[in-house]
């Protein structure tokens, strides 16, 4: 099954800009479905971005992050063809990971 | 650009007609009984089917019809007859809208 993580990492000079879009319902637990039943909370809690063995960015998310969440940041020290490892875990313990190459 | 005098006038007529319909529908209410509900519901459904033929039914007609059915099922025929009357009025208003729009749509057409 295709990964739930889409990432674009582009290095310009010694700064690498990272954009990530993750496929996830991000249910807050406050929304009712068509039959008026509350949809239980189901959201990504932590996303870790790792480069060269150390975390370059960690996102802690609550129930107010949009569906199919998106985040953008940049860090120094990455260069073309380096690997960037992204992994997320949600409140039900589900998770997914992807290793991408910096363009 | 011709100012749209007809449109508000035509909408005013729409309001008056439906007011008259609701008035007549409600004044015919005696103490509701199952028979009254059946006739009132049948009339409302017939009008709504006619609106369907004209491809212009309203969602509020449908909800009034289901409210009528629910009230009748609960044995509250007064409310059931009232809802059915309301549904008939809404259905008739939608029929009026569909027929009057047969020509009135040209008012908005871009030329």
């Amino acid at each position: 099954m295709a990964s739930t993580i889409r990432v674009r990492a582009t290095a310009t000079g010694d700064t690498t800009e990272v954009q990530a879009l993750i496929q996830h319902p991000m249910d807050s637990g406050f929304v009712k479905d068509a039959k008026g039943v509350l949809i239980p909370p189901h959201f990504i809690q932590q996303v870790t971005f790792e480069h060269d063995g150390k975390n370059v960015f960690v996102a802690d998310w609550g129930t107010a992050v949009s569906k199919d969440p998106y985040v953008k940041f940049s860090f120094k020290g990455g260069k073309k063809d380096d690997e960037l490892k992204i992994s997320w875990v949600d409140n039900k313990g589900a998770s997914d990971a992807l290793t991408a190459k910096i363009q | 650009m011709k100012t749209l005098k007809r449109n508000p006038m035509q909408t005013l007529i729409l309001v008056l007609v439906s007011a008259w319909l609701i008035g007549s529908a409600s004044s015919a209410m005696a103490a509701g009984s199952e028979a009254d509900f059946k006739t009132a519901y049948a009339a409302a459904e017939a009008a709504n089917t006619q609106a369907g033929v004209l491809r212009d039914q309203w969602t509020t007609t449908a909800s009034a019809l289901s409210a009528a059915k629910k009230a009748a099922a609960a044995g509250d025929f007064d409310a059931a007859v009232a809802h059915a009357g309301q549904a008939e009025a809404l259905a008739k208003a939608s029929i009026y809208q569909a027929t009057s729009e047969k020509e009135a749509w040209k008012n908005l057409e871009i030329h």
Partner: protein
Amino acid sequence: MTINDDGFIATRRLILQGALTVALVGLGDIPFGLAPALAAANDKYPEEAFKQKAEADAIKALYGRTAEPSDKVKLDAPEIAENGAVVPISVSTTLADVTSISFLVADNPNALAASYQIPPGTMPSVANRLKMAKTSNVTAIVEAGGKLYSATKEVKVTVGGCGG
């Protein structure tokens, strides 16, 4: 502002954690530039902070102190959100030694929306898309050099369409 029970326990546990991390750092061989701030540096998911209803409690649970507004924190958010489900919000700052950035939506059921750990070498700017229940103040908090700075902007949110 009364500190409710779990708020108090949370802060005590926070301080313990902080102490633990500091102790570990002393032992560890990774040369940390500066002693990590209370909660931000450790990787644990700040469960308590996300449970808080009010903004002030969330900030307290997360950082253990209050923030002062600063024009060095540039918060970018729309005036009227095109839709409360997807509100693009970003923040950037010229402050140095930034270790954490957080976003809070005051009138959401839980104020804390997202919190980001910024290790040394990562630029102090984040863009994300948040959900907003209704018109509310959106606040970005930047933790730099162990102190908290903030910027706030009101974002209007209403339902779209002409109604059911």
